């Protein structure tokens, strides 16, 4: 449980952080809350040569209203996100991340740019169709959620870029549900489902469903979405749509769940998340 040797830098401005990261080359990694990276380092699954901390960079934390949605500083802790009830499903999901100690340290920017498909914030971010702002040596750019997650623990954020904020639309008119299935409350999701439903007089005007830990990245359950969009919302139509939640997924099996069991859970949890979304 002792990591390999590494250097550590704690720049005090964003520009310094970006240049330190660039100069550090392939072995340099950003560290925010450290609750994804440090466990990997302690098990020596990751051995970065340089950690560039964002802890002393000003202006990266906090939640503000912006463009009809919310701009959440990348260094905002899960606990702070969870406490902002206006954030709806993102606040709810942030409150389900691991345990209180992790939520007090872990950050939304770190979670989304780490891109772990078993994490909760990435799935909600995908369903909400949010975006991140990333800044690198060549300036600042927006990355849409749909372009964000590339493969296992790999995102569209370049190695020399720093995610500075996460944008979550207000999701006006959407009801939401996030169902996380775990053996222990502190565990990563065995499977999780985020559902957003906009209904108009009992008809599904819009729907988004995203899946946690059902593949190498967070996934949209597009078959379910298509099955429900434009339909009248009833327990039957929801159940029928939820039956297609696992379509096209190829979840990895592990100690606690075979791929087939995970697909089954995805269907059950999708039904529950959709039901919750409509009730909300």
């Amino acid at each position, binding site marked *: 449980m002792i990591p390999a*040797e590494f250097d550590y830098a704690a720049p005090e401005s964003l520009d310094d952080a970006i240049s330190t990261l660039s100069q550090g080359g392939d072995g340099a990694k950003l560290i925010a809350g450290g609750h994804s990276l440090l466990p990997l380092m302690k098990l020596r699954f990751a051995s970065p040569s340089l950690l560039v901390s964002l802890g002393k960079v000003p202006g990266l934390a906090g939640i503000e209203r912006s463009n009809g949605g919310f701009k959440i500083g990348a260094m905002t802790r899960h606990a702070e996100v969870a406490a902002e009830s206006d954030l709806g499903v993102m606040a709810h999901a942030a409150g389900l991340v691991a345990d209180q100690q992790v939520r007090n340290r872990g950050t939304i920017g770190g979670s989304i740019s780490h891109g772990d498909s078993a994490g909760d914030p990435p799935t909600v971010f995908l369903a909400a169709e949010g975006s991140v702002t990333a800044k690198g040596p060549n300036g600042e750019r927006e990355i849409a959620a749909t372009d964000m997650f590339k493969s296992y623990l790999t995102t569209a954020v370049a190695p020399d870029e720093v995610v500075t904020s996460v944008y979550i639309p207000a999701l006006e008119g959407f009801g939401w549900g996030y169902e996380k299935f775990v053996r222990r409350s502190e565990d990563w999701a065995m499977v999780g489902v985020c559902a957003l439903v906009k209904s108009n007089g009992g008809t599904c005007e819009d729907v988004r469903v995203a899946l946690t830990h059902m593949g190498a990245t967070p996934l949209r359950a597009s078959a379910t979405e298509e099955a429900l969009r434009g339909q009248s919302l009833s327990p039957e139509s929801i159940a029928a749509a939820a039956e297609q939640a696992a379509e096209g997924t190829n979840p990895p099996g592990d100690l606690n769940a075979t791929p087939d*069991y995970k697909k089954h859970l995805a269907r059950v949890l999708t039904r529950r998340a959709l039901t919750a979304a409509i009730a909300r």
Partner: protein
Amino acid sequence: MSAVTDASAGPTPISGPIGRRMKRKEDPRLITGRGNYVDDMVLPGMLYMALVRADVAHAKIRSIDKSAAEAREGIYAVLTGEDIGVGAPLPMVWVPPGVEVKTPEHWPLARGEVNHVGDPVAVIVGADKYGVVDALADVVVEYDELPAVIDPEKALEDGAPLVHEDLGTNKTHEWALGGGDIDAAMSEADVVVERRIVNHRTAGAAIEPRGCIADWRADSVTLWTSTQIPHLVRLFLAGEIGLSEEKIRVVAPEVGGGFGSKLNHYAEEVLACYLSRHLGRPVKWLETRSENLATTTHGRDLIAYCKMGFKSDGTITGFHTKIVADLGAYYQLLTPFIPCFAAFVMSGCYKIPAVQTDIVGVFTNKFATDAVRGAGRPEATHAIEVMMDQGAAELGLDPLEVRRKNFIPKEDFPAEVAVGVIYDSGDYHGTLDRLLEHVDMDAFRREQEELRSQGVYRGIGFSTYVEICGLAPSRVVGPSGVGIQGGFWESAVVRVHPSGAATVFTGSSPHGQGHETGFAQIVAEKLGIEPEQVEVIHGDTDTGPFGMGTYGSRTLSVGGEAAGRAAMKVQDKAKKLAAHLLEAAPEDIELSGGRYQVKGSPDKGLPLGDIALAAYVPENIPEGMEPGLEETSFYDPENFVWPFGAHAAVVDVDIDTGKVEVSRYVAVDDCGRAINPLLIEGQVHGGIAHAIGQALFEQVVYNDEGQLVTGTFVDYALPTAAELPSFETDRTETPSPVNELGVKGVGEAGTIAATPTMVNAVIDALRPLGVTYMNMPLTPMRVWQAIQEAQGGGSGPRSTEQGRQTDEHGSGSAGSGPASPAEGGDS
């Protein structure tokens, strides 16, 4: 919530310190971070040790290249099994008379062959704890791999690869204990229920991992080690490192949990001493969590083929169990004995005319199993109490009525049971009656019915248990009895200081139980002072008398009794001295309200302080009396003690996902007279949590290649408070006649009682769906699969990851009742 009300047969009135709900004296220093654990200790010039461990389960070592590690800066030594001269292999102390136990030599470092993942092949010592871990990767070990033996039943098949070629077999030993005519008992039965009950492998998982520091100076060594048995570790070290016992000091500082996993003597303790001598510097080793899960003893891991015969009215005619116990690759201190300990309680709380337990031990390429909280008794109780419910279901009877019908009635105590042991005292109807005061069964069944109609599957499960504890007596457990090569008494010195305060030195060695509080209460009561004036010193071979340590729920009934007896000797002397000072006859002195006073003349009396001062300034003591006020007791009981109780769990099963939520857990335990109800509740809570952990969450899993899959707490699913309900606890008090305090043990009771309670509750919830039997751990996937199989027959996919070792099902019933769910095919 904890609703403790004292006692069935009338609570013992509490006037003095005994029985007081006193907060733990240990806690202020522990919860303010002022405890002193091995990892807190730093000695001048200290070096750090780390071990290169096998990453394959079974292989010959072709070569070890340590040159790159040796060349690293700050590395002082890199040694292999060939380099280290140790006088004796690690001990295994069970030598049952007339039984051959095949015993492989177990050296601190592998010699030519590795036999499990984590087997140490080299040791590195260096200047800092980071550097030695970096150097591990520089030691290049080439292996010629051998086939790994993982499944204990396959290991017994002809032609199976052998873990130890030279022993010629994977069978370690056969051992049996029984009484009564088991064949006749089965033929008299109207129904014989058979199940294959798997009690899977678990980890001790103490929150403080193991660790030690050895400091060899000139011709003596001090070893600080996180252990339950410092005196025994010293004795073993003497042989291994070739140093006379009095030159070895072993200290157990604060120990952050053990659960049996530190009732042992490990390779690292020997290596640290050896290397400290070799290098002339103190050497520290601290286990990582992953090492703890891989190479600190595991528990359980046996398959019990159970056969229980019943008359149609529910009377048990006999209980026959054949156990296949997976012992791992080498033995630790008690490895082959642990499954055999189960046999001593295979009668349970019941009058069963014939009971037979046949045990086969098996080598596999895994780490050793050994004692984990309960050590054999949880396995036995699990088998008995699951079988009680299975039998009742097959007979169409109420499982509680079947239990009542077979209980040993309280007027039968002391009661000899079929296997030949004598239960000291008990009132099994009493604890079950008390339990049912907390659980309204009629209301529960109505609610259960109603909820089922809403699709909610709620179940209730029970177990009524008895356990054997207070390990002792030596003549039964020792070399010519059960065959453990040692004595099983406990020792105490009670030293009253000139001021009248006291220090107790105990051979018992705590790792979280609260000895400092409980022993202080006992001694304070016997001396007529307050517990705050009694300090308890433990765990240091240089300060107290030889002691056997803390395990087997023996602390209070053996160690506490020894402390009480030493204190009574002090009280006797204090009375004689008081009589002399008060000019009265010794037999006229009574201890009352903290004063040694003349009967009938309460104004003539002295507190202990005055008497102690007179003893230490001996100007006026009786002719022939020695000065001072200090006594020693070595206490070896005449019998074990037999705590018992009745537990109930209420669970809700989400049948769409298979997840089990425990909504209520109610425990009524009887551990004899209570010294401190708060300490009892702490132990009961911990024990239940431990057992719910095994029943629902925890499992040590090796894959088919012998790789440990559960190497961190991410995968080894230790539950937290969030997964557990608030426990409801209650007690009855049936004193033990074995010791003067009237006490029994309680540290393992929860672990012993709660796994069958949980399994019975889940099965009760799912019976309407056709689920009649399941093995632990009741993980969501396995529960869901069981429901699928019961409903549709084998549609549930099976985990390929867990393979056979996690083994889901019991064998089919041989009786007339409904069959167990069929083995589902792999998808």
